[in-house]
């Protein structure tokens, strides 16, 4: 085999690397464009405001599905936010290097890698069966809280750690208690980061399927209470594609999903940029 000169291999390598980047863009473009082109034509006011017929029929719209998704987001975020922020405050403001802290860190670290279906299995065993909640919104939401807690804690903790230490020292020097310092100084300064964490969690509720597939039931009807079952947009896509082969409606629902996800991504990027510039301003404000 002839030796390739460094110059040739340099050129070859760069072509391949750009090729990898190009292919990645192509994959994303293929998915997004394919779904939008095939799905958007089905989306109209009627599709968004009529309930699906359900059962083995793929006909109808997605109104009840949208309502269920919104309910699920609200319940999940309502439980997740206080617990997640509380845990993050403990880890960033109070925790000393002891066994309990190390255990908590290990738990957060490990929980983040456990797959969705295992959370589903757990939610099924605990919330659906042992606590007799059945396949319901509350069982799905509690399962989601367990699933999302590690990310919520980590993102919030990072936001709190990014607040300059001088802020806390200034507040403590003025005679504020530790909690007053956290509540009136650290938390407000970390707010954009915490908002990002909440929005990211909302996105995950919308994207998640496996753990909900085994805890939410999958009824297409309008939920009447937190003990009713239901299906989210993502689950609806699954049922339409697998049970009814209604690929046109599945594409339309998937297009709605992709539009929501793109909006969420743009919004979090904007937020984190704002956060970064606010943080640099804090740093520059230092004497």
């Amino acid at each position: 085999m002839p030796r390739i000169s460094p110059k040739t291999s340099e050129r070859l390598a760069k072509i391949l690397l750009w090729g990898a980047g190009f292919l990645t863009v192509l994959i994303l473009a293929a998915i997004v464009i394919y779904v939008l082109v095939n799905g958007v034509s089905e989306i109209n006011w009627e599709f968004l405001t009529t309930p699906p017929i359900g059962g083995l029929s793929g006909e109808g719209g997605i109104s009840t599905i949208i309502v269920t998704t919104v309910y699920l987001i609200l319940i999940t975020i309502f439980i997740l936010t206080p617990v997640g922020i509380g845990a993050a405050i403990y880890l960033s403001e109070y925790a000393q290097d002891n066994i309990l802290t190390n255990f908590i860190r290990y738990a957060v670290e490990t929980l983040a890698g456990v797959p969705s279906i295992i959370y589903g299995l757990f939610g099924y065993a605990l919330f659906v069966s042992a606590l007799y909640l059945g396949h319901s919104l509350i069982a799905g939401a509690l399962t989601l809280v367990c699933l999302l807690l590690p990310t919520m804690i980590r993102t919030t903790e990072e936001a709190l750690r990014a607040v300059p230490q001088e802020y806390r020292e200034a507040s403590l020097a003025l005679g504020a208690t530790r909690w007053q310092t956290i509540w009136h100084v650290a938390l407000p300064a970390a707010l954009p980061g915490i908002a990002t964490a909440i929005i990211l969690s909302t996105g995950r509720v919308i994207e998640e399927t496996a753990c909900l597939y085994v805890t939410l039931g999958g009824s297409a009807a309008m939920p009447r209470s937190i003990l009713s079952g239901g299906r989210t947009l993502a689950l609806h896509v699954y049922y339409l594609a697998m049970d009814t082969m209604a690929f046109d409606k599945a594409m339309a629902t998937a297009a709605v999903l992709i539009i929501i996800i793109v909006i969420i991504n743009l919004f979090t990027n904007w937020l984190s940029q704002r956060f970064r510039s606010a943080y640099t301003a804090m740093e520059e404000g230092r004497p």
Partner: protein
Amino acid sequence: MRRFIDRASRYVVLLAASISFLILFAIAFFIIARGLPAIQEIGLVEFVTGTVWRPGQGQYGILPMIVGSVAATFGSLILAIPMGLGCAILLAEIAGRRARRFLRPVVELLVGIPSVVYGLVGMVLLVPLVRNLGGNGYSVLAASIVLMAMILPTITSISEDAIRAVPRAYREASLAMGATQWQTIRHVLLPAARSGIGASIVLGMGRAVGETMAMIMVIGNSIKFPTSPLDSARTLTGNIALEINYASGLHEDALFATGIILLVFIIILNTISFFALRRSRAQNIA
């Protein structure tokens, strides 16, 4: 009063933090408590090496599903490692500011696309293409390609961080000795970043093993050993999701036992990546 609030709040946030610890404990407890009796009844060896899964006749062997999960995961890694590493090098070393500002959101958006959308596009776009090669299209190959797109962002972003974290002096020393940029990347940066790159691959593997819905949608779910990439198969995750809603008795417990096996896989992978990442960080500080 404010002293009281100060003291009380400390315990409130400690309680919140302990909940994550409790959840981990509860997950392990519930899955093991439900799955272990099944493993005892069926026998661990019989359960893991049995080749027939017929709950109706009391036969519980998950080897075909283990093979299905492993095959789809390895297929996806073969595709995703060169692509992801290529993107990581491109983002960390070669691309200019403008290209980076375009590529990074693309990678982020790939993470955000729901797994059912991957599954749906796989079903309508990919499966018919694979069908042209033979078989009915619902196959390990289709699953590997879908998984590749899903784990690509993990490999790309963590590898990029690892390459970026290599001290500047390494690059400068290599370039100063007359090495080309590619020689620097290949012989200096990649070896220096290998712990982080290894961690990214193992984490990608964890994501691939745990993926459920997209797999159910494109892999065909038949319970048999895949003998070629064009064969249909079933994953461990798919086995749990497809049957848990109607299973009862020993069948249900056997699905929890499947969860234990899956959890063992994931914990091994997570532990490896945890230590690899720690090593990579320690190296960069040194």
